[in-house]
């Protein structure tokens, strides 16, 4: 007979309330369960030193990892989401937005930063999973679109770090059209012959995968990230079979030809530097 009884079964915390990045003193790896001091985790770029699990982090953390100290400035932060459709599911979208904004320290599901990586200029559009599941709505599309204009104007390369459940249902077809919008804008970046690096992190699914995430000149991913168009649950329900181990993970995508390489977070800055230097070469023309 147990001393304590759990009165509510299972996990009751909603996805949006789950905190991946700890603010306590200790952090426990959700993969291997090892507990380490939070300071050590940050030192190790939010990667478990024991099992190499890459914890989910947001734009602020990524910017610290890739940009030279003090070089990054955020762009287009004034663009804010709008509940144009008056969408109501279990709660109104308007309330959802207000609550999310109070809870998280980012302004939307994607933040744009411009700064220097080992001295090289780079614009980064980084998705924030804790903002409504990193879902792509009008603001995400518009920020990417403006980041592309900015890159073309300044002749900077572009990095997009994807981490998203897909298009944001509460903006309906407007969200869907962000796939068209970002892909259309990328043709302009391509025409300007500026490099586009797409980094996929855990998870990258749905409309994000089916648009800008897969359109990089160079497609890369963090280890063991879930990357796919349809989610594993939907596929399982459709084919009525268990999915093979490692299905839709980075290593699976590399094996099937959809990634150029997998990069550990600790090597990310140097690999980005290499790619930028080699693509934006000084060969005689």
């Amino acid at each position, binding site marked *: 007979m147990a001393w304590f009884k759990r009165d509510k079964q299972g996990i009751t915390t909603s996805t949006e309330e789950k905190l991946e990045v700890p603010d306590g003193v200790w952090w426990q790896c959700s993969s291997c369960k090892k507990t380490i001091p939070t300071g050590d985790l940050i030192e190790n770029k939010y990667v478990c030193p024991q099992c190499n699990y890459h914890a989910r982090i947001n734009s602020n953390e990524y910017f610290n990892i890739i940009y030279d100290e003090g070089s990054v400035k955020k762009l287009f932060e004034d663009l804010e989401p709008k509940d144009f459709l008056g969408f109501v*599911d279990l709660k109104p979208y308007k309330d959802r937005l207000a609550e999310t904004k109070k809870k998280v320290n980012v302004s939307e599901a994607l933040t744009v930063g411009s700064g220097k990586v080992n001295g090289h200029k780079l614009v980064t559009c980084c998705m924030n999973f804790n903002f409504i599941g990193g879902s792509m709505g009008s603001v995400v599309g518009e920020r990417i679109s403006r980041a592309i204009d900015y890159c073309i104007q300044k002749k900077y390369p572009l990095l997009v770090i994807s981490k998203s459940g897909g298009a944001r249902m509460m903006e309906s077809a*407007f969200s869907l*059209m962000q796939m068209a919008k970002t892909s*259309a804008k990328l*043709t302009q970046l391509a025409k300007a012959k500026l490099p586009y690096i797409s980094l996929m992190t855990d998870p990258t699914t749905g409309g994000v995968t089916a648009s800008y995430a*897969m359109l990089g000149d160079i497609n890369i991913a963090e280890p063991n990230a879930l990357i796919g168009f349809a989610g594993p649950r939907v596929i399982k329900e*459709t084919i009525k079979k268990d999915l093979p181990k490692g*299905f839709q993970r980075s290593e699976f995508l590399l094996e*099937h030809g959809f990634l150029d390489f997998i990069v550990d977070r600790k090597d990310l800055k140097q690999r980005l530097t290499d790619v930028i230097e080699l693509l934006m070469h000084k060969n005689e023309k």
Partner: protein
Amino acid sequence: MTYLDFEKPIEELNEQLDKLRKIGEGGKVDMTSAVSEIEEKIQEAKRNIYNSLTGWQRVQLSRHPERPYTLFYISKICSRFIELHGDRNIADDHAMVGGIGEIDGMSVMFIGQQKGENTKQRQYRNFGMANPEGYRKALRLMKLAEKFEIPIVTLIDTPGAYPGLEAEERGQGEAIAKNLMEMTTLRVPVVCIIIGEGASGGALGIGIGDKVLMLENTWYSVISPESCSSILWHSWEYKETAADELKLTAENMHKFKLIDGIIPEPVGGAHTNADEMASVLKKEIVKHLTSLAKFTPEERIEKRIEKFSSMGVFND
């Protein structure tokens, strides 16, 4: 004739009408006035029902089992048609069809999802859900059209891109993404028409055009109302509500400037008079292709990019 749940009043009146006609045919009783009375009632019931269709009812009409599909329209619209097959890589996707047709002496590349008309055909067509090779076949045909300066018409009718194991292995996301980018810069005119279901990325994957049109009783959305209900309401029971909230009708899509026009259907839906629907569709296609031909490829591409780039609502 298959009636949908909300068409019950019409079905009942039609049954009454049949009975009266049969009695009338017996010749003993004059039923003329009774018949015309019922006929009037039918017209009134139709007006009441079809003038105030909800989002979910449009979804039902778009999936009507007798609704005409892509190859039917092509056969009615074109004087000649050669179907082309295969993505030149791994397979021929039966859910995505395409080929070169002739309309009034003009060559046109047709591409579209194809659904089946009976159980066997539905399986063969994978219920109109294309695999990556379908999107790659579509792109191959578009590039072929571009090479020979043939305008492109896509007919969209899909419950979504196929969510299968092999589809993921072969890069469903990449295949759709590539089409979005490539279609943006096609040098020939592109007209995209939603003729049935316009579900999410699976529809958009052949949906980037100079003109994007919807038939009156179709839908276009980021997700199907059923899936939306299951994710946001944690239940399959809210599909009607989800359909309303998603604002997925042609009327809304046009109001939001996310599509360029609506093509009217015969009263009661395209299936009630498929031949008439096909002839309306043909006129629309010819009209748009003729007007798009007046621009240079560069002008069309610029406008296309401008149009899709301006989509979105936010506070600035």
